Structure formats: structure tokens, C-alpha cells
């Protein structure tokens, strides 16, 4: 197999998955995802083995190790998601990223520049890991969890954000005969409530671009739009937003600096249009 030449690569080493995005001439050429291995450095090397690139940036919690070992730069997930969202949704002013272990809310200025952000500090409450554990206790595969929650009604509430305590609550609700769909709905509502509070703290107004793996849960976007009172837009491949942002930042002439001119949105043309919740007909 021949090697593929691209301009730049973004590598997002998250707690649960690694995503790689390669761009050339402003368009996405390669998207790859794998579950984060314990030795993720070797894994990243394999994921890049057939790519020739001029520049690259690492992001995600493993960014520093990867950057050091590959001799490339690093940016935080916050900046990477902002840069990705700004290109996927030109004019984006607020971003919510819920990944495997972190939740981040940010507001953006022109060109995807981060104005203000909030991040959960030391606990993975209300993140992807929360859904993995609670979906399992409902006996529902993670990929079906969103559909289950969408079919549920608002009959109960989950008060705990702690993954372990929430699991206890789920067991208690099940023993009271509450339908699994309603419990799923309650779990989504509790995470959405927490995310909405974070968005309020950063002063988000107007549409929220929802990124990260948890954005693939369709119920989350819908419930979040209702709880936050803001329209929510989910890009077609929300979990690649960080890697895309890192790739686009790497492709700029000076990857260390924010480009004052909003970048062109060619990258956005590579996938189906995103999904909008929270507006009449949206």
C-alpha cells in the first residue's frame, strides 16, 4: 500500500478513543478512530504509519506524550474543539464537548478564538463514562441508549451526578418498576442539566455546537436544547471535532497562533449536514 500525502494531521488522544484526522487543501482526507490502548503511543504511530504529512498537532489528555515522542506540537482539547467547531459551523459562538471523561463548555470569538471556558475538574461525573456504566446497568447497548431515552417520558429524576451513586439510583428505580426508557431519559436529563449550567457559566447565548462522543447520543442534543433553552447543533461526526481542529490548526502557517481571519469552511463539506435541535422545524 502506498503512502498518502496530506498537508496536516490532528491526533486526539482521549481517555476512551484516539481519533486521527488528516487534511489536504483545506478538506478532510482521512478519518480514523480506535479505542485508546494502554500503550497509546505505539497505537498512534500505527495509525499514522501510511501518512506523509508536513505538520501535526496532538490534543487530548495524551497530547504531551505524543507530542514529545513524535516531535510535534500540542494544543489543549479546548482550543482544538473550538477550532474544529468554528470550521464545521462557521460563526459558531458556543461549544459543548462531552468526551469520555471530561465536559467542556466554551464561548468563541471571531476565528474560533476561545473567549471563556469551563471544565469539570477532577471527576468524570456526567461524561461518556457515566453513560457507559449506567447504560450497562439498564442492560442497553450504548449505541441504542439514545433511542431508548427518546422513547421515554419524564416521570422520574436522577439526582446524583456521581457514576457510582447514579448506578445505585438506577437499581432502585428498576426495583420500583420504572420503565427502562424513563430511567434512560432521566439519566440524559441529569447530564444535560449539568452541561446547561456549565454553558450558562460561560455566558453561552444562541446556538450551541455539541461535540465529542456523547453528542452521538441523539437524546442528549434534544434534551439539552430544552434544558438550556438554546438551539443545539451536532456535527455529522461529533467525536472527530477535536482531531479535525488540531489538523486545521496544524495546517495553518503558524500553528502556535490563532488565525485572526475566520478559516474557510471547506472541511465542513466532507460530511452530511449536521443535526439541529431546539428550534421550530429544527
Amino acid at each position, binding site marked *: 500500500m502506498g503512502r498518502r500525502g496530506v498537508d496536516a494531521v490532528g491526533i486526539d488522544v482521549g481517555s476512551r478513543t484516539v481519533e486521527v484526522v488528516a487534511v489536504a487543501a483545506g478538506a478532510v482526507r482521512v478519518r480514523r478512530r480506535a479505542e485508546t490502548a494502554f500503550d497509546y503511543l505505539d497505537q498512534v504511530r500505527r495509525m499514522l504509519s501510511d501518512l506523509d504529512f508536513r505538520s501535526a498537532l496532538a490534543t487530548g*489528555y495524551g497530547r504531551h506524550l505524543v507530542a514529545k515522542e513524535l516531535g510535534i506540537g500540542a494544543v*489543549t482539547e479546548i482550543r482544538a474543539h473550538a477550532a474544529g467547531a468554528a470550521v464545521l459551523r462557521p460563526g459558531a459562538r458556543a461549544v459543548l464537548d462531552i468526551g469520555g471523561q*471530561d465536559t467542556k463548555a466554551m464561548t468563541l470569538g471571531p476565528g474560533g*478564538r*476561545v473567549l471563556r*471556558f469551563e*471544565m469539570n*475538574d*477532577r471527576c468524570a461525573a456526567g461524561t461518556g463514562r457515566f453513560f457507559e456504566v449506567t447504560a450497562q446497568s439498564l442492560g442497553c447497548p450504548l449505541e441504542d441508549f439514545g433511542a431508548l431515552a427518546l422513547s421515554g417520558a419524564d416521570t422520574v429524576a436522577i439526582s446524583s451526578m456521581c457514576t457510582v451513586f447514579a448506578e445505585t439510583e438506577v437499581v432502585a428505580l428498576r426495583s420500583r418498576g420504572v420503565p427502562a426508557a424513563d430511567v434512560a431519559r432521566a439519566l440524559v436529563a441529569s447530564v444535560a442539566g449539568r452541561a446547561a449550567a456549565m454553558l450558562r457559566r460561560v455566558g453561552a447565548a444562541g446556538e450551541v455546537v455539541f461535540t465529542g462522543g456523547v453528542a452521538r447520543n441523539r437524546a442528549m442534543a434534544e434534551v439539552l436544547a430544552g434544558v438550556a433553552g438554546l438551539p443545539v447543533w451536532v456535527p455529522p461526526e461529533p467525536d472527530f471535532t477535536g482531531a479535525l481542529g488540531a489538523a486545521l490548526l496544524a495546517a495553518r502557517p503558524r500553528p502556535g497562533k490563532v488565525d485572526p481571519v475566520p478559516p474557510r469552511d471547506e472541511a465542513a463539506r466532507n460530511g452530511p449536514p449536521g443535526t439541529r435541535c431546539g428550534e421550530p422545524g429544527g
Partner: protein
Amino acid sequence: MGGDYDEMWRGLGLDLPAHERLLELLGGYYREVYLSQADRPRAMAYLDAVMADIHGGRVRELQAARAEGRKVVGTFCVFVPEELVLAAGAACVGLCAGAEVGFAEAERLLPRNTCPLVKSFFGFRLARLCPFMAACDLLVGETTCDGKKKAYELLADLAPTYVMEVPQAKRSADRALFREEVRRLAEALEALTGRRITAEGLARAVRLVNRRRRALQRLARLRGADPAPISGRDALLVNQVAFYDDPERFTGAVEALCDELEARVAAGRGVAPAGTPRLLVAGAPMAVPNWKVPHVVEGAGAVIVGEESCIGERHTRDLVDEAAADLDALLDALVDRYLRIDCACFTPNDDRLDHVVEMVRRTRADGVVHFALQFCQPYAIEAARVRDRLDREGIPMLRIETDYSMEDVDALATRIEAFVETLG
């Protein structure tokens, strides 16, 4: 380190094997945070020597003074007037409380969700790891927060403890209360040392402590230069050591450091290139060896140019008026000075907001990292008012709340790096 101090430490009741491990850990952490820095000022060698001998040399000095009949008084807060302690002929030391040490022992007495600073001084005492605390003839606490206030009641069972009341507002009745508390402390110190506090003795102590404050103010001013002539970590260390070193000798060392920094500034030489993002750290105190946040901030490519903190400018900003002629006037001057402290235990505390903005302007900081210790409600809650004020002034702020553990270092680094990115 070690060896020749074992007898002294044993005499002070320390747990020698555990203490040895603590010093090893501390030495390793110091090498990582401090000795790894490039192009440090040469005069920092004094601080390195003090730190290498942290539980040795100064403790031996204090023990020697005690052998001659002097007393040693330990304090936990910038509200306890050091001048009174010195004027009564005693030595004054600030007590170590910046490490997650002896927490298991401390939690037998204190709730888990107690501020790490309070937990730490109990931990050091109960685990028998602090020679300073053990060398004290009296511990002077104060009522600056509920956690400390109630903790001193428990501490009194373990060591001779005196508590002075600090008011929570600054009206005339509060001033009268604090004036009475200063007089009461003076009496207690006289009873401890058997020496009267005279006008001459107090005036001498005021001048001595003011000299140290002026030296630290000079250091603070020099940090306004771009490139910054000294790292935030080093400057924090200087402010930390100010609490337990001999004031005379320490002041000389700071002046020597400032002479060197002045030459650096004149030569345009700095610890980071000109244009490096500059941050002010504001909020709760960072006691030795709590260097976590500065280490992360400066590891993220920024340089810290000021500490709006008790271990920082809250300790050094205000001088005591030296013009006072008699003892009563000197005590009034002390009260005036100490009630200018803008601790978050006061309500309202608007002076602090002005001081944060003034420091940002003077140090030419690009943003503020607001630091609260976990479970420290005064600073954690006041952060919202600081944020409002800084928003109005157009100054970016990152709010963090953390403790002495290392488990959140990666998450802190992400937030601090992202904050630095927003300044770029």
C-alpha cells in the same frame, strides 16, 4: 540532609523514620520544581540552602535561643502582629502547612472535607513531622475562618495555644475589638517571656519588620519588567521563607537578590522571553511546599508575575507607621496596619478587588488565575466578585479550586494551558 540533626529532632519528639522519608520526598520535589529551572538568579542560592536545610539550621537556631531563655511563638496567619512577638523578646515562625502529610491522623479529629491547610497543620502535629511546631513555646491562632477557629480548640489539647479574635468587618466597633485583642495578645506575650513590651522595643520591631516588607515590595516591583527577571516559583519561595527565617538575615538576602534582579532588568535579561504570557495568581495562601499551581502554570508556558495572597502581597503591602511616639500610639499604628489586610474573611471586602486590579496593572499581567483551596469558602465564594470586577476591567480570569494532592494535576494543566492559549 539529616545525620547531625537526629538528636535535636529526637529531642523534639519527631518520628525520625517518617521525617526522613518526608525530607527525601521534599528534596525530590524541590529538585523537580526549582532546580530544573534554567537561568535562575544566582542569589537564589541562599534560598536553595535554606530549603536544603529546611528542618535543620533554623530549628537549631531557635533551639539555641530557647536554651538561652528566649521563647518561640508559632503563628498561622498574617493577622498575628509579629512586631509584638519580637518586642516581647520572642522569635516568631510561620508554621508549615502546605503538604498532604499525616492526613489519615488528622482525619481522626477533623471532618474529611476540611480545608487542606487546616488538615495539614494537624497532620504535621499528629504525625510528629514538624520540628518548628515542636519547638514553639506558644501557638497563636486567630479566628479568620470557622475551620481554623474550631480547629484551634482541638489543637489546644495538643500544644499550648492562644487564640486572638479577628473581626469580620471594619467598622469602628470592629476596630475597637481588634485593638483590645492586640492589647490582650501583648499581655499574653509578656506573660510568656517575662519581658515588658516597651515603646522602644516595639518601635525597633516595627522598623525591622517594615524593612523586610520594603525588601519584598522591591522584589514585587521588579517583577513588573518584561522579560520577567525571576520566575513566579522562585518569588513565591522567597515569600514563603519570609515567614520563618531570621528577619534580619532574610532581609539582607532579599536585598541582594533584588540588586541582582535590577541588573538583570537593566540588561533586558529574563527567565522567559519577552512577550511570554504573564499571570497574576490571586486568592488563598500557598504554604511550603505547595508549589503545585505555580509549577503547572509555568510549565504551561506562562510566567507568574505576582501573588495576590497572604503568602505574597497581602503580607507585605502595608507598612506600620513608624512615626508613633509612645506605646499606645504604636499599638494604634499596628491596628491600623493589620486592619488594612484584605482577607476574604471580611465583609464587605471591596478593597481586595481594587488591589487585584492594581496588581494586574502594575505587574502588566495578561490575566489572573484565581486560586482557592478546596473547602475554603471565603476565597471560593469571593471568586465570583473578583470575576465580575475583572470582567468589567476586561481582564481574563481562570478560576481554580484544588488541594494538596497530585491527582488533579493533569486536569489542572489542561485548564491552565487552555487559559494561556486564550491569551496568546
